[in-house]
């Protein structure tokens, strides 16, 4: 359950102050499939970063599962990112030195999960995302689709309640992109909240709830029945 109340975020660009988010109010219930669309500079990525606790609002209140998270310490926020939030990025953000398996293992390592348990969970994830053959390959040896699958496996290894995807298919061709979307949607069907930022209309239309933004404001918020 995500509840944003009067969230405002400004950036200083030289002399000018840019209002990236202008008093955003938004509720997202658990298990929803939300797409956020809008032109560049509309504030959609900033909104995603604030939901993901990567960015702090200048004003407003953010409740995650009934807890006011805007007032938490840096360490507590890191813990929430670790346990409740999974990020999927356009450019994958895999660590080039590590193998696919090790990249997937990273959140478990950060959480201090014992090695034996880590190995089992990583093995299961590799299986679930059909990456067993690629477990010991470096990201540079993987195709774009495989890389994004590794990234999704990493985002879900901690079994987060929310997955935040920022243009997840932006670096992939149409066919592979569609495959990745199926994967993400499958996760959502199993109860994970999926929030996706995109400027691809076709992609955005797949979500049950579509939010459009412009100049830091939500200009439309429509819910459709699943296709």
């Amino acid at each position, binding site marked *: 359950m995500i509840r944003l109340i009067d969230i405002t975020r400004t950036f200083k660009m030289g002399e000018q102050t840019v209002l990236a988010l202008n008093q955003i109010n938004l509720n997202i219930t658990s298990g929803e499939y939300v797409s956020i669309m809008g032109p560049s500079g509309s504030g959609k990525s900033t909104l995603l970063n604030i939901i993901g606790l990567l960015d702090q609002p200048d004003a407003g209140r953010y409740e995650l599962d009934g807890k006011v998270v805007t007032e938490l310490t840096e360490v507590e926020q*890191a*813990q929430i990112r670790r*346990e409740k939030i999974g990020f999927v990025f356009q450019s994958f*953000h895999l660590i080039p030195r590590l193998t696919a398996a090790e990249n997937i293992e*990273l*959140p478990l390592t*950060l959480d201090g999960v014992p090695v034996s348990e880590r190995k089992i969970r990583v093995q299961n994830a590799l299986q679930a995302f059909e990456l067993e053959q690629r477990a010991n390959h470096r990201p540079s040896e993987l195709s774009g689709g495989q890389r994004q699958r590794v990234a999704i496996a990493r*985002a879900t290894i901690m079994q987060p309640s929310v997955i935040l995807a920022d243009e997840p298919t932006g670096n992939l061709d149409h066919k592979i992109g569609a495959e990745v979307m199926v994967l993400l949607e499958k996760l959502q069907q199993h109860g994970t909240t999926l929030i996706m930022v995109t400027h691809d209309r076709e992609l955005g239309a797949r979500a049950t709830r579509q939010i459009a933004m412009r100049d830091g404001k939500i200009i439309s918020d429509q819910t459709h029945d699943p296709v």
Partner: protein
Amino acid sequence: MTLFDTLQTSLRTVISYRIRSVLIVLAMSLGVAAVVILTALGDGARNFVINQFSSIGTNLLVVLPGRAETTGSFPGAVLGQTPRDLTLHDAQLLGRLPQVKRYAPLSIGAAELSIPNRLREVTVLGSNADLIPIRHMKLAQGSFLQHGSGRSAQIVLGAKIANEFFPRIPAIGQHIRLGDSRFLVSGILAPQGESMGFNTDEIVIIPVDYAQVLFNTTSLFRILVEAKNHGQIESTKQAILAALKQSHDGENDSTVITQDAILATFDRILEALTLAVAGIAAISLIVAGILVMNVMLVAVNQRTAEIGLLKAIGATSMDIRRLFFTEAAWLSLVGALLGFIFGQLGSLLIRIAYPQLPAWAPVWASLAAIGIALFTGIAASTLPAVKASRLNPVTALGKK
């Protein structure tokens, strides 16, 4: 993140940036090796000097008659009272002191050495059998003056004398005339050259009683005393002075010279030298530390996106700091240990090249070198580590 995982992760990072890591480890290890090798040289020189002294005998005390001191003008001084001589009796007295290992009385003079058709004036040393071990002399052939054979007329020849008098036949067992007495050649000294003021190749040694008869004197030139151990030098000196004072009717008229004073000065000079050299070498360690800082700063810039990602998947600032910290620690640790090994190998090579120079790095220098390397490396990584941990994850992720 557990400490073990942190150490493992940063070690993997170090290994994966191979060239960078090898270079920085090399820089660090050269610094440590420089400290180890230079202190090994300095300490080797120090030990070399000590060894030179102990070849004369570091436990050696030299007793001489007379006493150099300024006194008031009391009647005795005006009368020009001469100090009592040292006698064989005094020497035997010193030999009975518990601190004394052995002693050798020394009587010196010159006499004419001759065989039919050979003649020369030589320096004659009168002493006993213990002169050889006390002065670390070596015999080339034969035997030295036998213990308890003070009454038999034996003579030991210096190497050059033996060669000149008996160029073709073995000298041992020959008779030779010294002054008015006949002596049996019992041994020949090994060539040693100059030592303590005279050339031992051109002397002859006879039992001290014969020397006293030859020179018509009862006094001794010196008494050489060897203390049982180095720590007892001072107490031995006091015991000798006390014994002689008693034997000389309460008169403090002997002087005891130890080598300790001279040795201590050399010791201090060379130790200061070692420290100075170590200090100069330590500068290279600090340079290596700055190099580590530079490398880590570059690493933070290079891995900005990665740091952003780590934060996004839930790493705390502390985790990030520790990762960079341990990375620098690994580099420093490997550099320091490798440097220590290089240093030991270098010292070994020096020892092989110059066997007389005991080039062993002192333990304190090795430990200090490793310690400084670790300290500078880790201290230098503080700034980059803090910088990394303070990165804003959103901007960090945006960087490619």
